[in-house]
């Protein structure tokens, strides 16, 4: 698995190659998806403590709405292009010019805090090819 060249900034100027899963993607994948033995098949299961993970589901709520409004407040007016009604004028510029991340990221970023230093997924050894291939 190759690691993509990530475009800098929030812009996404096109990616180069498929990339490996970060922790957030792994959580979305292996905790929600895949075969479940107890729901699908009956096998003698054993109990073990599983560490709980913060809720990852985004549920629209008043907090969500307030975060959106806050993000609007941080829009950099000096970058205004023509055609945005009502935003240009004697408004307070709050100096948040270089903040590309904001409160809107909060829900998704819970995982990044949780992940801490685990940016690179560990890769197990590759499986050998099928015999006879």
């Amino acid at each position, binding site marked *: *698995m190759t690691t993509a060249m990530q475009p800098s900034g*929030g*812009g*996404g*100027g*096109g*990616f180069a190659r*498929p990339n490996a*899963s970060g*922790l*957030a*993607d*792994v959580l*979305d*994948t*292996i905790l929600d*998806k*895949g*075969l*479940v*033995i107890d729901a*699908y098949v*009956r*096998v*003698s299961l*054993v*109990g*073990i403590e*599983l*560490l*709980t993970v913060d809720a990852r*589901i*985004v549920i629209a709520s008043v907090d969500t*709405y*307030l975060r*959106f*409004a806050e*993000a609007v*407040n941080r829009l950099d007016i000096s970058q205004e292009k023509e*055609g*945005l009604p*009502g*935003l240009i*004028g004697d*408004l*307070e510029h709050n100096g948040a010019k270089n903040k*590309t*991340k904001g409160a809107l*990221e909060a829900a*998704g970023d819970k995982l990044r805090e949780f992940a801490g230093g*685990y940016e690179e997924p*560990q*890769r*197990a*050894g*590759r*499986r050998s*090819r*099928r*015999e006879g291939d």
Partner: protein
Amino acid sequence: MAVQDTDTRKPAVYVYGILPADIELEPGAAGVGDPPGEVRVVRRGDLAALVSDVDLTKPLGRPDDLFAHEGLLDAAAAEVPVLPLRFGALVSSDDAVAEELLQGHRDEFVTALSQLEDRVEYVVRGRYDEQGILREVLGGNPPAARLANQIRGADPDATRELRIQLGEILNSEVAAKREKDTRAVGDAVDGLVEASVVRPPSSELDAVYIALLVRTDAVDDLEEAVSRLANDWAGRVDLNLIGPLAAYDFVGAPAATAAATAHRELT
């Protein structure tokens, strides 16, 4: 579901996934647990399971465990068909794996594996540029723009209701754009993929989050199609293609797989 009285002194068997029996496992593959358990193969007839022993006195779910689970399965899926299990499946013994799991569901597993032959999963995940998408929404929604004007620089407590109102409009508009942009990805890869499943957004700024099942000989075309879209969306959406992955989104209970959109008959 039968859960045995757990004798925590004995190791339990952690199951990662189900594969055809004729695989070779490289020695030293590291599994879950601390220290990582050694991954091995349990075979029964024409099926195999990747397993490792785990210590029941220690909880599972550290980031290392999650990466080990997925890393093992994704590496395998790049070479052979794999039915990936959800994280956390523990069985009492190798015998239970062989008899109850593999033999007990042999026909279903063999069929599912044959459907995944030469196929692999990719996930397209995109996130809006925050400033860009807000400008886009405000530019197209004058009432929202007027609200934005009213709240800018104003006392937060005094404008709380207005801010909630504005936020609700923005949330709804972004959700509409997410739907539209998700369809755009679907259109861009139509003809290249065999099935797709839309995943629920993981953040308010998600533009697209979709799992794709693709033949391995179509992967280059898929990369090209997504790359073109990424260029079109440069500055607006940060688009990423993740894979190859085991087919997590395309296995499971019949209800779950029914949610997958079939683009073509799976042979």
